[in-house]
């Protein structure tokens, strides 16, 4: 019995010294149990002094092993902490079911599955990455894709000035910061983020970010630009993103400012607010792997956005105007001006009395959103406007948060285009998560 108790003691010692190595500790303790447990008759014959010596030897062995493992751990981490402790793992994903009116196709879609890996080199250098699989299957014939959505290093120098290098999300609009499913209302991201400010839109480059004041944050970057030859009448600038190896021939400059009115003052009724402005300028003669299309011209984007919460109400909206110089030369029905906006309101309706037990952190948000976007807002001289580019869309639905990071969604969408065409209404269901 004493041997068994000692083995339990070794197990505790191992667990304490080798956090996260319980399996190893268990295996070693079992080995000690097997090797150190003599037959009952033999144990009865052993002198107490002999047993104590053996226990002391084993304890010394455990201590030596413990010190050795600690040394190994320290040798892997420059700052002396645990090597694994430097990693941050996470991810998000969403599965949708889309049902269209009439002959519109119905589908179940594993829309996104994203893995986040971060690493802390030390207290001022961080790595962040997101790798995404879209639509559940990738082949030359399928619409699925694998992409590195983000992969950048942050060099944290001070509150006011930090440096970012790598692939990051273009800082325009709201969705670039709130693209995880629990962070936005509705099954699909707003259509505004397909036709006006594409998402996911990443840029490869370098920049600085920080806080000019406690309530005022900024980001400024220079990065690879867009391929203007891929712009068109209905999708606007969306096709111009270069997702593999963007050229730096005509680089892009971008930045944003965010002001938080309640950062330093009392906020009655739980008010939280943010007002943001962003700008983007890019030349258009860029291609993949430096194969530039020879497109002359440039793109300028100015955008404003806000988010405001008070009591149980949430509001958010974005407006953006794009000016394309050289649109006529690009062709494809490309407009010289693109304009769009949306506004969304939601109310938290889950009764406080129900927030107990398994539903203690649950919430339900009923929302309505109106989008108005026109990829043919202003046309070059002599180019005929395509009314299919001028669209509106109503979306109404509910987000039900079982826990803050797991959400079930349902919504109904009514899209219309500028030709008065009755586009199929959609019913969407989805489940999204983040961890």
């Amino acid at each position, binding site marked *: 019995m004493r041997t068994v108790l000692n083995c339990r003691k070794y197990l505790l010692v191992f667990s304490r010294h080798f956090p996260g190595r319980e399996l190893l500790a268990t295996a070693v303790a079992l080995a000690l149990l097997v090797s150190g447990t003599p037959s009952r008759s033999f144990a009865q014959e052993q002198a107490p002094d002999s047993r104590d010596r053996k226990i002391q030897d084993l304890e010394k062995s455990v201590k030596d092993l413990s010190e050795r493992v600690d040394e190994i751990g320290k040798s892997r981490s420059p700052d002396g902490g645990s090597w694994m402790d430097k990693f*941050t793992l*996470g991810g998000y994903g969403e599965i949708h079911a889309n049902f269209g009116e009439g002959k519109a196709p119905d589908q179940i879609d594993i829309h996104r599955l994203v893995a*986040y890996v*971060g690493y*802390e080199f030390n*207290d*001022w250098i*961080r790595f*962040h990455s997101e790798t995404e699989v879209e639509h559940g299957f990738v082949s030359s014939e399928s619409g699925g894709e694998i992409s590195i959505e983000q992969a950048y290093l*942050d060099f*944290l120098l*001070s*509150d006011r000035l*930090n440096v970012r290098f790598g692939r990051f999300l273009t800082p325009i609009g709201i969705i670039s*910061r*709130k693209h*995880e499913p*629990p*962070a936005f209302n509705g099954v699909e991201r707003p259509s505004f983020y397909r036709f006006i400010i594409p998402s996911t839109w990443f840029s490869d480059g370098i920049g600085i970010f920080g*806080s000019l004041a*406690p*309530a005022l*944050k900024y980001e400024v970057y220079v990065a690879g630009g867009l391929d203007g030859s891929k712009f068109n009448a209905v999708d606007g600038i969306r096709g111009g993103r270069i997702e593999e190896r963007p050229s730096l021939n005509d680089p892009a400059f971008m930045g944003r400012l*965010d002001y*938080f009115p*309640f*950062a*330093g*003052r*009392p*906020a*009655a*009724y*739980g008010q*939280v607010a*943010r007002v943001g402005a962003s700008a983007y300028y890019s030349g258009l003669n860029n291609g993949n792997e430096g194969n530039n299309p020879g497109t002359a011209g440039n793109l300028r984007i100015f955008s404003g956005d806000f*988010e*405001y*919460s*008070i*009591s*149980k*109400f949430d*509001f958010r909206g974005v407006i953006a105007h794009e000016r394309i110089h050289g649109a006529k030369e690009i062709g494809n029905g490309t407009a010289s001006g693109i304009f769009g906006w949306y*506004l969304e*309101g939601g*109310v938290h309706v889950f009764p406080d009395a129900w927030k107990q037990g398994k539903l203690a*952190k649950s919430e339900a948000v009923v929302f*309505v959103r*109106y*989008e*108005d976007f026109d990829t043919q807002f202003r046309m070059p001289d002599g180019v005929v406007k395509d009314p299919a580019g001028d669209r*509106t869309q*109503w979306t109404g639905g509910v987000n039900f948060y079982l826990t*803050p990071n797991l959400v079930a969604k349902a919504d109904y969408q*009514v899209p*219309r285009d*500028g030709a*008065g065409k*009755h586009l199929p209404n959609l019913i969407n269901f989805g489940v999204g998560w983040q961890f």
Partner: protein
Amino acid sequence: MKRWNGTRIAGRLLVAVLCLAAGIAGCAAGKAAIPTADELHAGGALPIGADLDALRRGRAIFVTECAACHRLFPPNAYSPEQWRGIVKRMSRRASLGGDQAADLEQYLSAASLGGK
């Protein structure tokens, strides 16, 4: 074409409706869910010698950095012990510096207890 015009007009009416809802919400009774450091101090929720400046910085980080990526959860929704784990994990993802994370944790711990 008639439906198109109606849809667009209705969209603009939404602006007015949401503004009205914001006004109604503003009139609704409720207490401060994200108390300032000075409110916590005035309410006697802080221990003697608490660093008010650190708490002010921590609240500013909470309202700016955290709200930039997700909806905010009131400080009293979690215990100080729970906030410690949350801040450790999320401060890395938000690229907060060590001092910023410490200020944030200090504020959330104080507001977690003081906001109840």
